[in-house]
């Protein structure tokens, strides 16, 4: 196990940064993930977000492109 790999700090983006990013990048070039439950997603979500509840994340990730930026909320 490589020491430190476990602690790659997760970068964060605030809502304004995400808005700016979404405005300046084409759909399909990045992934916006909503990891909450379906009920929460139905109530409201960020436009364009893909719903993947936590329990399904590892499976869903195998179909995602690891080179594309991912924004998670």
């Amino acid at each position: 196990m490589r020491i430190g790999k476990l602690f790659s700090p997760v970068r964060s983006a605030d809502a304004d940064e995400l808005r700016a990013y979404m405005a300046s990048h084409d759909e399909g070039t990045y992934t916006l993930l909503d990891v909450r439950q379906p009920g929460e997603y139905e109530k409201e979500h960020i436009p364009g977000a893909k719903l993947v509840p936590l329990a399904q994340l590892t499976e869903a990730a195998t179909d995602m492109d690891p080179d594309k930026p991912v924004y998670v909320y």
Partner: protein
Amino acid sequence: MGGRSRVAAQLLSGMGFRDVYNVAGGIRAWNGAKAEGPVEFHLEFLTQGDTPARILPLSFNMEKALEDFYLAVKEQTGDQDLSATVTKLAEIEHKHQERIMSLGETLGVERDDFDDAEEGRDRRMEGGIDVEEFLAANKEFLNDVEGILNVAMIIETQALDLYLRIARDVKNDLTANALYALANEEKQHLALLGDLLDVKLEEKSAT
């Protein structure tokens, strides 16, 4: 309710995603609100070595911490559904400890290594998990059933992340398979907790 996205982002970066961002404040921040999320388990102990003698006691501690968390919730909650769920999960996490211990025996890990790790649990400087401290730090997020489920999902995701990361790097097949089996069960717990969260949110919006 925040915090789930941060552990999700950790999980994804562990799976090789290079460019992952946690959207701070989530949907609430998107709507203009300021929001702070719960804290996760303190997991600095993971920077230790890679032998089963290191990994298994640490995994054991993670399971013990999960069990203690569920037992503490059971003690506090008046919600019957939540109580039934955490009782069941506490039992499974207890069995996980037994499985990790017996895997340790198979691999020749000394009992002392487990005992040392257990002692370390209470010493924050050693990177142990102190459940009381964890509960105190998250007090404001544990006031209702939804908050408790949210925090439970955060730590189950951390356990899942822990097992997947170690399993991918571990050289011994027996250990790797045992860790994948544990990871799969934590994933089932996440599904269980998620379903209950959906039910509770529905009940809340119906009243």
